[in-house]
């Protein structure tokens, strides 16, 4: 069975989704939905292990050899991403029943799980596939599922948020598809390995196809930038994350932008190659300033938010800036920094959103002002939030430090002093917005008239602390993340040629 692991990774959640529709029974569905991410995690772990030992694995669907057939190609980079995605899904799962607030939603609980598993299948599919069009299909599956998940938020405004997410997401998907179409026109292939082989010919300047390839790349890059919420295309993100159910925000924040980032990196480095993208297209000239603006604008916006989830969402915009900064530094070290941050940010933002979900459950609000007194009444949740916040700032001993270290190092390697200083300086903004929450939670007293609150049950604390604990663990045991990320960056850099 082990040779089927690449396809099982995607088929298991893809099958489990519709199965939820058939089962309908609440306990059965919940059991299934809890088991599937765990199974996915196991598969992803096995894949990562195998890839580390034998190198890239190729799986031919239907037995058709690429470039004719669809190929699933697992190497270090996407195995790493799949581990993250399925781990986050597994951890978020216990939070989902908490969102079955209204009776209407509760009656349709099985639909909720079906959509969730479908989103998981989509995200894993994007990562696993070695075929551009297949990637697009899964991108749409994941996106459509995400729109519906966002729409399930507590307030009616969630519908508006989901709608604008849908419109913008569709624009992004369309751009991506246009890019694929143009590439197909020039090369006649959709397979990533094949594309990497065939693109250089039309790419070379002077040939008639060079402009088409250029336009194809621009479409792909902008399309993925939208999905990734690169500043200034980030506007869907705060709205969607703020209004989605907290557990969904945790899941999406930790996985969906990460997978888009992976796809962008795959396109930039594996398909087109760093030389072309940075020398001929000068991607860094645009992406580098945008990343830095994102770091500052996102963090500054976070400082002024009054809503906890929106604060975290804007912080995500800034953190995505760090990740794209890693790409735009155009070096293996920079890419390593970006990939490490992909992993670390998934952990910390996932953990923080879960903490926000814990607060939401007890406080029935996500306003920061309502957190008053939570430090004493919900000590574990608040401690988790603070630890996650420290990681966000990049305090040493937490995972956030490791990624910033690599980014600073990559900037210094190229003598870009200003960039290094800006990375450090932007961390100070993170101090400011984390401190705002800490101050209210620990130093403000809860209104006498407010309804009593107590700590959330261990069922929710444990997953939150798994993520938060992981940020600390991976802050100390850096060889696990940084080592794999460095190898993955190497694989991507070498490209598929």
């Amino acid at each position, binding site marked *: 069975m082990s040779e089927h692991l690449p396809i099982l990774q995607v088929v298991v959640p893809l099958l489990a989704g519709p199965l939820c529709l058939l089962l309908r029974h609440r306990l059965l569905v919940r059991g299934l939905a809890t088991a599937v991410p765990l199974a996915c995690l196991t598969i992803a772990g096995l894949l990562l292990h195998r890839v580390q030992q034998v190198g890239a694995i190729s799986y031919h669907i239907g037995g058709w050899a690429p470039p004719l057939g669809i190929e699933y190609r697992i190497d270090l980079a996407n195995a790493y991403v799949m581990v993250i995605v399925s781990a986050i899904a597994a951890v978020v799962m216990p939070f989902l029943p908490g969102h079955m607030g209204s009776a209407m939603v509760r009656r349709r609980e099985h639909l909720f799980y079906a959509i969730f598993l479908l989103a998981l299948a989509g995200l894993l599919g994007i990562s696993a596939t070695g075929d551009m069009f297949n990637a697009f299909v899964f991108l749409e599956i994941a996106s459509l599922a995400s729109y519906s998940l966002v729409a399930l938020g507590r307030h009616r405004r969630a519908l508006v948020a989901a709608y604008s997410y849908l419109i913008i997401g569709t624009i992004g998907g369309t751009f991506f598809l246009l890019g694929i179409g143009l590439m197909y026109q020039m090369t006649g292939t959709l397979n990533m390995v094949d594309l990497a082989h065939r693109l250089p010919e039309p790419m070379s300047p002077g040939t008639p196809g060079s402009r088409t390839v250029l336009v194809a790349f621009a479409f792909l890059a902008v399309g993925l930038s939208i999905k990734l919420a690169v500043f200034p295309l980030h506007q869907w993100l705060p709205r969607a994350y703020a209004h989605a159910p907290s557990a969904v925000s945790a899941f999406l924040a930790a996985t969906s932008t990460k997978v888009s980032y992976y796809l962008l990196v795959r396109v930039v480095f594996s398909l087109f190659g760093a030389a072309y993208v940075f020398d001929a297209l*000068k991607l860094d000239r645009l992406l580098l300033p945008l990343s830095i603006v994102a770091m500052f604008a996102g963090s500054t916006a976070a400082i002024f938010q009054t809503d906890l989830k929106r604060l975290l969402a*804007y912080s995500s915009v800034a953190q995505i800036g760090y990740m794209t900064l890693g790409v735009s530094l155009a070096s293996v070290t920079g890419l390593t920094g970006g990939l490490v941050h992909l992993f670390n940010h998934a952990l910390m933002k996932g953990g923080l959103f879960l903490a926000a979900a814990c607060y939401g459950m007890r406080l029935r609000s996500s306003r920061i002002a309502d957190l008053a007194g939570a430090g004493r009444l919900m000590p574990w949740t608040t401690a988790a939030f603070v630890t996650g916040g420290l990681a966000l700032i990049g305090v*040493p001993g937490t995972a956030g430090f490791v990624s910033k270290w690599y980014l600073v190092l990559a900037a210094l390697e190229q003598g870009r002093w200003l960039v290094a200083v800006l990375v*450090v300086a932007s961390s100070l903004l993170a101090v400011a917005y984390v401190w705002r929450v800490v101050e209210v939670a620990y130093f403000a007293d809860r209104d006498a008239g407010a309804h009593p609150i107590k700590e959330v049950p261990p069922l929710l604390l444990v997953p939150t602390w798994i993520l938060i604990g992981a940020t600390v663990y991976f802050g100390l045991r850096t060889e696990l993340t940084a080592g794999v990320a460095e190898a993955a960056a190497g694989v991507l850099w070498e490209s598929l040629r």
Partner: protein
Amino acid sequence: MSGLPPGMILVLGALALPLVRGRLRQLLVVALPVASYAHMLALPADLSVGAELFGYALEPVRVDRLSLVWGHVFHIVAILTAIYALRVKGATEHVAGLTYAGSAIAAAFAGDLITLFVFWELTAVTSVFLIWARPGARSRRAGLRYLVIQVASGVLLLAGSVLTYLERGSLAFDHLGLSGPGSVLIFLAFGIKAAFPLLHNWLQDAYPEATVAGTVFLSAFTTKLAIYALARAFPGTAILIPIGALMTLFPIVYAVIENDLRRVLAYSLNNQLGFMVVGIGIGTELSLNGTAAHAFAHIIYKALLFMAMGAVLHRTGTIKASALGGLYKSMPLTAACCIVGSLSISGFPLFSGFVSKSMILSAGAEAHMLVLSLALLVASAGVVDHSGIKIPFFAFFAHDSGRRVEEAPWNMLLAMGAAAAICIGLGVYPQPLYDLLPYPVSYVPYTTAHVVTSLELLLFAALAFAFLYRSGRYPAEIESVNLDFDWTYRRLAPRAVAAARRRLAALHAAAARRLDAARRRLLRSLERTYGPSGLLGEPWPTGTTALWAAVLLAAYLILSYL
């Protein structure tokens, strides 16, 4: 086990404290530092544990003679303070104190700059809770100021480490010297924690605001860790001599007029650090030995003095000289311990300060540094005043405040008694301390000339005090705030407005309004842009994003044609 940095037992073990209660917690509080000490003693004498982080060779544990001096004394004082704090309710102080002690110990055994940095920051983050554990807005603000400055020190250290790595290709924490921008930043980072002049004020600002036991913890670790770091990386750096001399001098003036006795001790702490900094600056074997010995002796007697003042605060609820006095009647044992500490810090023969401080003084004399030696002489007379006389005199004697309180609790007395015993023991028989020092010691403290000159200095200074006090010329204890360098960051802007008020009374109101309005305008414009309803804070309409997508697309294409 030997791969575990010394002190980590404390850091990790302390995290378990909130899980247990009552007697078990008390037992654990004392057992943890003892276990950690045992772990350190069991380590091989020149152990080095290598590790790799992002491909850099690190050395999380490096045991040598210099680090062992600090390892010993940090552990001893951790045990003493744990006993002193035994009956504190609530886990916060225990956890903060023990993790703080543990991270300081681990930092002293760091063999590379990154490990040092990690524990350096950890001491800052853990120790601030010792300040915050005291209720009230005042300690909250003081703690925040303290934290900001400490973290800034860490940031400087990190920046300096990165630069140093780029300069030399090594992260080893060894002799650096002032040899480039990296090492200058590291020097500044150490200087903040060592409370160099103008960088010193966090110490006097924060320490007196901590809890009773918290101040004892604080007094022992942060600054002495910085002394260790300076001794490791910058021995013989000439600039340290004037810096240290200045440090010994200016705090004594403040100590004379300060009313908060714990703040007096904080100034005296600063002055003592000056002696150690001078010792590092001289850089001879004798002076470095002297610095190590003085750090050792100093940690114990300074902890003893803070414990005594803490006991007074614990029993009377105040530590203002103006509100105390005559306590020797109700707290005789505390008073006796406090006097032992005072004699030690003054450098009275047969007490620990004598055998350590005289090494530094002798090193200065042997190097024929005339000005320095005279400065240290004056500083020594100053120590007699603020710690030798002022502390015990105003707390326990002077005019009777009429307060009748209980003697300190048994655990505090036990800790103070043990510390006092160490002070006397080292003073009478210094050989065990000398055996610990990094370089071989041939120094003999008890020569006739030494003893006589020291006694002369001390007793005549005391005579001068008696003369001044009895003639009513000694500055009275007045409850007040004395401006220090922290004024620049606590008062500079408001003060500017105040000056304007005095001179340009008419313009003042307008100026203040304008200043305030400008500040508010800035905040408002920031919030207008970034706030929940601002341009960058509120999601734009979908169409705007689409427009931006088109703009970006065009930008990519145009860029590639450039």
